[in-house]
């Protein structure tokens, strides 16, 4: 948006005074390029390159790389001239590069956004014409550029290690790509964490959680890279290609979801913060389902089955958290949101569930969880029939995904409906954050398990308990454990699924009221202004 200078008349648009000569043209081009890129990126880079943190990290990186080059080479003398010595050198360089890329840069991005919130500069940013997305992407771009600087600095060392033989080019590229993708994804996670913190205690907790996550990621990736360097790549060509593409797709969609959520946290309440997240969540789920199906087919055997199981568990966790947050949303449909409501009959029928609000969130969650449950059951049948799941993990797959695969979504739907009711009561006199929805789900789940268990335990004189369907039908933990052991009678499954269907129908009818708000026209003057 080019702001028009209105009243003072001091500023007028005009061409650059520079004219003629290739240097002038280059300068002009550079300025136009600078104008086109994200202002946050410009500011952050100016700040970062002057900051003590960057100078210290960069100096340490250079020193550590140089020190390892000398120390590593000397320690392998004179074998270094005759036998492949790259693995050891490469591991050292990886350690030098991974620390700033996976720890320092994400933490700096977190501190940068958190600092903006603490110092009140974020408020000054939000009243400019920059959107929350631009702010978040600017921070991410700045962090990526810093990572690039660190990587470029270490490139000669990596090239040196490659010439020592022992690590091939694809492996080197794979390590670099893994480092870059992980660093970027961890920065996205850090940016997602930054606006979550409220108050001093919250900030400390968030910071500690992030550091723990970063250290775990650093450790996990280091294990993978070291085994890749020492033992080589265990995957065949198609498997490697699939793994790389699937990892990229999952990283991209998961990163998109986190960025959308981070931007939503910086967006005012009156605006639609929910639809983007729901669409992003759908995109991630679709990619994950396709990836899991392909994983079973391409990584045939136990590896595929393990990937499938992990994927199912992760998807279940993701939807548990996201659905609880959606149920905790604010029910107010502001005029701003009403301007964007679907207007035709078909679009209202299909897209109303993407509009913000706890009722639509509940229905959206129920539809998606039920669909995923059905897909999972079909997937399981396909895996068993086609023989992809043959092997030692086949029994485990059947145990985890058959009856528990039905029970878990059914319990989740029941609990979400209860949480929706609780949140409606809480919202009568308060305006809680969406996170309260998640807290309510945890409380409901704990109560549903602990209360019947304690009661039966008490009536059983505190003796060891056998699973009793009459007492423990709401105890999801006991029921699922019994189902995993193949000891569950059919009664509880029918009851829980029946309750889930009944509560879903109640939720759907209760949500009917949310379909009533109609789209309102955007004021003409606003439209003119937006078009102008």
């Amino acid at each position: 948006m080019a702001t028009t200078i209105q009243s003072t008349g001091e500023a007028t648009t005009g061409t650059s005074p520079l004219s003629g000569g290739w240097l002038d043209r280059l300068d002009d081009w550079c300025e136009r390029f600078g104008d086109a890129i994200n202002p946050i990126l410009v500011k952050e880079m100016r700040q970062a390159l002057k900051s003590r943190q960057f100078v210290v990290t960069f100096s340490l990186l250079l020193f550590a790389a140089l020190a390892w080059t000398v120390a590593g080479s000397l320690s392998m003398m004179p074998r270094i001239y005759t036998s492949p010595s790259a693995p050891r050198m490469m591991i050292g360089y990886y350690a030098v590069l991974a620390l700033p890329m996976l720890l320092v840069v994400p933490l700096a991005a977190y501190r940068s956004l958190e600092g903006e919130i603490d110092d009140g500069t974020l408020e000054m940013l939000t009243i400019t014409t920059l959107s929350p997305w631009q702010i978040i992407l600017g921070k991410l771009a700045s962090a990526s550029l810093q990572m690039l600087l660190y990587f470029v600095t270490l490139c000669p060392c990596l090239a040196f290690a490659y010439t020592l033989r022992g690590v091939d080019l694809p492996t080197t590229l794979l390590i670099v790509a893994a480092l870059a993708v992980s660093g970027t994804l961890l920065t996205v996670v850090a940016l997602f964490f930054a606006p979550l913190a409220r108050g001093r205690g919250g900030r400390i907790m968030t910071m500690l959680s992030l550091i723990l996550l970063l250290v775990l990621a650093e450790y996990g990736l280091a294990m993978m890279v070291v085994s890749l360097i020492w033992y080589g790549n265990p995957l065949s060509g198609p498997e490697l290609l699939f793994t790389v593409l699937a990892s990229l797709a999952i990283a991209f969609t998961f990163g998109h979801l986190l960025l959308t959520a981070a931007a939503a946290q910086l967006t005012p309440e009156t605006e639609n913060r929910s639809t983007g997240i729901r669409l992003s969540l759908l995109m991630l789920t679709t990619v994950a389902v396709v990836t899991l199906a392909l994983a079973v087919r391409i990584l045939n055997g136990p590896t595929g089955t393990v990937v499938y199981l992990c994927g199912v568990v992760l998807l279940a966790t993701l939807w548990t958290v996201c659905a609880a947050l959606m149920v905790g949303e604010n029910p107010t449909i502001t005029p701003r949101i009403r301007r964007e409501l679907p207007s035709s009959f078909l679009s209202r029928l299909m897209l109303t569930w993407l509009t913000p609000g706890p009722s639509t969130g509940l229905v959206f969650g129920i539809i998606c969880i039920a669909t995923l449950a059905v897909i999972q059951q079909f997937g399981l049948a396909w895996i068993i029939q086609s023989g992809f799941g043959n092997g030692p993990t086949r029994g485990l797959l059947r145990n985890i995904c058959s009856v528990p695969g039905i029970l878990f979504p059914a319990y989740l739907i029941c609990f979400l409906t209860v949480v929706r009711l609780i949140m409606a009561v809480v919202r009568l006199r308060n305006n809680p954050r969406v996170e309260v929805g998640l807290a309510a789900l945890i409380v409901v789940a704990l109560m549903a398990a602990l209360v019947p268990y304690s009661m039966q335990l008490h009536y059983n004189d505190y003796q060891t308990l056998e699973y009793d369907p009459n007492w423990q039908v709401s105890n999801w933990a006991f029921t699922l454990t019994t189902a995993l052991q193949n000891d569950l009678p059919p009664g509880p499954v029918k009851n829980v699924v029946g309750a889930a269907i009944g509560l879903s129908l109640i939720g759907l009818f209760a949500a009917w009221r949310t379909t009533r708000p109609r789209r309102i026209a955007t004021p003409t003057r606003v439209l003119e202004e937006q078009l102008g």
Partner: protein
Amino acid sequence: MTTSEPSSEEQPAVAPFSATVPTEPNGPAFAPTVTPAVHSGVDDCIELRRLHRFFGETRAVSDITFSVQRGHVFGYIGPNGAGKTTSMRILATLDLPTYGDALVDGFSAVNDPELVRRRLGFMPDAFGTYRDVNCREYLDFFARAYGLTGAQRRQRLNWVLGFTGTEGMAFKPIRGLSKGMKQRLCLGRALIHDPSVLILDEPAAGLDPRARIELRRMIRELADRGKTILISSHILTELDEMCDAVGIIEQGQLLATGSVEDIQASKQNQLELCLRILNRNDEVAEALQQVPQAAKIDQVVVDGQLVRFGFSGDAKAQAGVVSSLVHAGFEVAEVSARKKSLEDVFLQITEGLVQ
């Protein structure tokens, strides 16, 4: 309680603002005599409509309605915790009202914040700065953030540096600047995109007298250039000289709005009488209750030989009071009367209550 229509004599030829104090059973005791209902005419550059903001049980802003015409300076006065900053933040699209709306140039700060932001420059009371950034880079960043490009951005940047007198500091890091220079820089940031409306929250706080005079000059100059300015301050004498109109707020409620003269005229006690009495000083307060003009006297303060009180009568009534005291045996050595300042009016209207 409703706003009464002013008489034709009282109403200025061109009303600088219009305001309404809404009806409320437990509303403020003071009803300003000002022009009637708020309207959304094109000349109302800033408009607050029945603005409410509650934080739990605390009513930070309660049913505030007023508007400011284009090119005018509106002073927002109130004790700490009165709700000034909250209503300014709502207007600046940084907070949302519990009920009501705030409009800038006819655009809602709630529903169309991005359109409001293009027109609005906000200078908060607390000035957040960036590390490792100098003044020029700071302004350049905000110019970019407002979408200014190329030569336009450079020209605007130079103008702002010149106008705020910060050219000499352009390449100095912000964190090393004095409070006064930071305030100038903050004003520069608010002006960088040439907004038509400026919201200045306590801009003179912590400034030395010279910096305050300079700031006052800048604000007047901006108003002369057609900017509409909403300014809050505790230094009432400055607002008195600078503002076309003022609004007095306490405990989230607007107690009075109008030009300083209108508000002064609307108060019953226009004068403060000061007498110097040489004898029987401890009896004078009681004696003043006995004089025939006692109904026109309030808030008697005896300070040694000096006796001060608010007085709503004319010159003849003043003479009557003095005469009565002399007849009662008091030795009146000196009589002086002065009109109430904005500070006096403020003290009279507000009760110093905080939430």
